[in-house]
């Protein structure tokens, strides 16, 4: 069974993000970048499936600037067998990425596509769902447990009310939640081996996908600073404020 995992290069989760001076977006120049943590979980799950003898090949795909190759090398070091970069300097929005992945899926015919439920930069949480719709494949989002057997995926999902377990037919789309697994540390021998694994580079045009942004970002601003609180004399005053000022009770 072939498993496709998509990985996105994002600002490292340890970095405190700063705005660009002109307010057009978040500063990414000279900022530490790394693999989206949810995608790392997706990749780890694929590697575990391979180690369990269920998956036979893992293909890692990233869409974005040339530097995404670094992220793909990390994916290869974690355990992907080969990688594809769809190289574009365009701002890639979820629909564009979903279409690119759709095109690759139609060529590669994976049985399972695992994606992070969202990327920690824009938190869109859309690509997996869009990809499922485009391909017409079943989807199981926010997975915290995944079992593959008899051409089906049994997925435990983290939903608002608790956990929901569903069974979907392969080929299918699964997006990962935080508790699905704990990604391993990359080993030095695997970093060295990753250098020799194949990494292909495509342009969106070659895949026949128009990646032009559909949404326009008008302005990006910092959240408003938290205002200082006030001290209340007693519980009665608190209840009064909650009822009349905040109107929450």
């Amino acid at each position, binding site marked *: 069974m072939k498993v496709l995992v998509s990985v996105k290069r994002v600002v490292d989760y340890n970095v405190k993000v700063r705005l660009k001076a002109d307010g057009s977006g978040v500063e990414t120049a000279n900022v530490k970048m790394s693999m989206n943590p949810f995608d790392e979980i997706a990749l780890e799950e694929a590697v575990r499936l391979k180690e369990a003898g269920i998956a036979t090949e893992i293909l890692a795909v990233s869409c974005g600037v040339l530097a995404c190759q670094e992220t793909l*090398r*990390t994916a290869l070091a974690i355990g992907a067998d080969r990688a594809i970069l769809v190289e574009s300097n365009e701002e890639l929005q979820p629909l564009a990425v979903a279409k690119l992945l759709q095109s690759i899926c139609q060529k590669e015919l994976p049985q399972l596509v695992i994606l992070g439920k969202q990327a920690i930069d824009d938190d869109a949480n859309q690509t997996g769902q869009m990809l499922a719709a485009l391909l017409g494949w079943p989807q199981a989002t926010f997975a915290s447990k995944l079992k593959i057997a008899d051409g089906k995926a049994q997925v435990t999902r983290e939903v608002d009310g608790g956990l929901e377990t569903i069974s979907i037919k392969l080929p299918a789309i699964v997006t990962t939640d935080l508790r699905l697994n704990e990604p391993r*540390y*990359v*080993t*030095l021998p695997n970093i060295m081996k990753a250098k020799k694994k194949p990494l292909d580079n495509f342009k969106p045009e070659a895949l026949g996908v128009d990646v032009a942004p559909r949404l326009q970002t008008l302005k990006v601003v910092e959240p408003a600073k938290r205002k200082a609180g006030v001290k209340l004399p007693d519980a009665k005053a608190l209840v009064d404020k909650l009822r009349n000022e905040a109107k929450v009770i």
Partner: protein
Amino acid sequence: MSVYVAPLKDMRFVLNELAGLDELSKLPGYQDATPDTANAILQEASKFATEVLDPLNYSGDQEGSKWRDGAVTTPTGFKAAYQLYCEGGWSALSLDPEWGGQGLPKLLSTPVSEMMTSANMSFSLCPMLTQGAIEAMLLSGSEQLKKVFLPRMFDGRWTGTMNLTEPQAGSDLALVRTKAVPASDPTLGDHYRISGQKIFITFGEHDLTENIVHLVLARTPDAPEGVKGISLFIVPKFLVQADGSLGARNQATCASIEHKLGIHASPTAVMVFENAIGYLLGEENKGLSYMFIMMNAARFAVGLEGVSIAERAFQRALAYAKDRVQGRDLLGGAKAVPIIRHPDVRRMLMLMKSQTEAMRALAYVVSAAVDFSSRTEKTEERQRLQAFVDLMIPVVKGWSTETGIEVASLGVQVHGGMGFIEETGAAQHLRDARITTIYEGTTGIQANDLVGRKIAREGGVTVKEWLAVLRKIDLDLAISGNSDIQAIRSRLAAGAQAVSVCVDFILATAGKDPNAAFAGAVPFLKLMGIVAGGWQMARAALVAEKKIASNDADQLFYAAKITTARFFSDHVLSQAPGLAATVVSGAAAVMALTEDQFLSA
């Protein structure tokens, strides 16, 4: 308590711009060490160091290693972390591929070691000692011994130790008394019976692995007196059977562990050998010469500990200084401000930052010289590089560790009263750093080595060659239009002049008045350190100037580099003429008092 973030940007800058990684990766056997791969390695090593080792630093210090009935338990979490360390393959980064290492250059293992040590110095000592033992065995061991021990030491399943010191034999190993008596029997073949006591054995006993391979210095029955009668033996904790499985417990036991000022998590064992079975490494009576060959690597590693602890202490102080609100801004303002806005706190932080960066640059450049010298085909070039390494090893060891302590002490000072309290963690760095100027040869011994073997003995040839390099860079500095670089230039020239005056003094006195030459050895070592550090900071400033001119994206980093170099030259390099005065005219008073005159009671 987790504070450490690997300074990857500075590490990459030093690797690529000052130490010549790109050039190194073109040499035979180093093709894999490209800047790209280096990036990936640094990234993953930093993840491991900060996520796995760093969280155990404070808890490991508080809990310490514990001894009971001959067994040592390392602090909570150490065993699992060690397991992960081995699985990561970090132990074999620069080791020989023939035995399963990655064969990467020392220049790449250097930042990796720096990170591991910054994250958790106590932990890092175990792999460091194992590496030393491996190198000794590669150097002197028979094929048979190598086959038995090396594969399992390369992957970390077994650790190694160095058993040199005895109660009466510290810096002076001529006094070693441990005995080794030849023996033979049908099952064990030729071996020796080792008896004696060794002290200060780092990770001499622990619960991280199933076996420990002790390397022990001892004397055979008819060995000559002094350093020429010492042999080196392998004494495993558990004997290894023909099929490679573990056999009987050898009589190499841990009598206790020391209660120390710092590195509490690292067990420092008293080892007792009672007729323990040992195997000779190399030839009889050559033990100390094998140790000498490895000494550069060991001393370099400890010098790097100075850099590591300084970086960690700096980061903690910086975080505190940004957070701690106290006192109003000197320029006015009604409200108390974070203490980083006060000039003196700034000065301390800059002292920490600039010296750490200077030490890092010098250490990496020296480690690159080791690689270049090992791969270059021209004999003359190799000898020239090796002589430079030999000259700089005592400087890296002595200066970086002394400065490491100074930086850790400044770290406490930045914290004020809170630094004196253990909970902030600043005190641990000072306690941990304190050993680094002592083990693997005290600063005094490094300085004697520098003055005696590395300068006087060869008539100052290598140090003068280095001074010529400094004169050459002066020409590059001269054409810069940057006023900071001009200021750096004049300080560096004064520093080079100070070294030159001292070298002449040393060459003139070492033969006829050795007390005079050696009385100022440590101030001279410090002088060499700050001038060598200033040299690297000047090179860094020149690179930064070019990067800024070429509109490199990271303008802030490069501008900070020039400012940091300027600070270093005004606050540190400026001490050079004073140190030279101490070296040249300070000797008489050092030796003048009678021993009775010392106490004025």
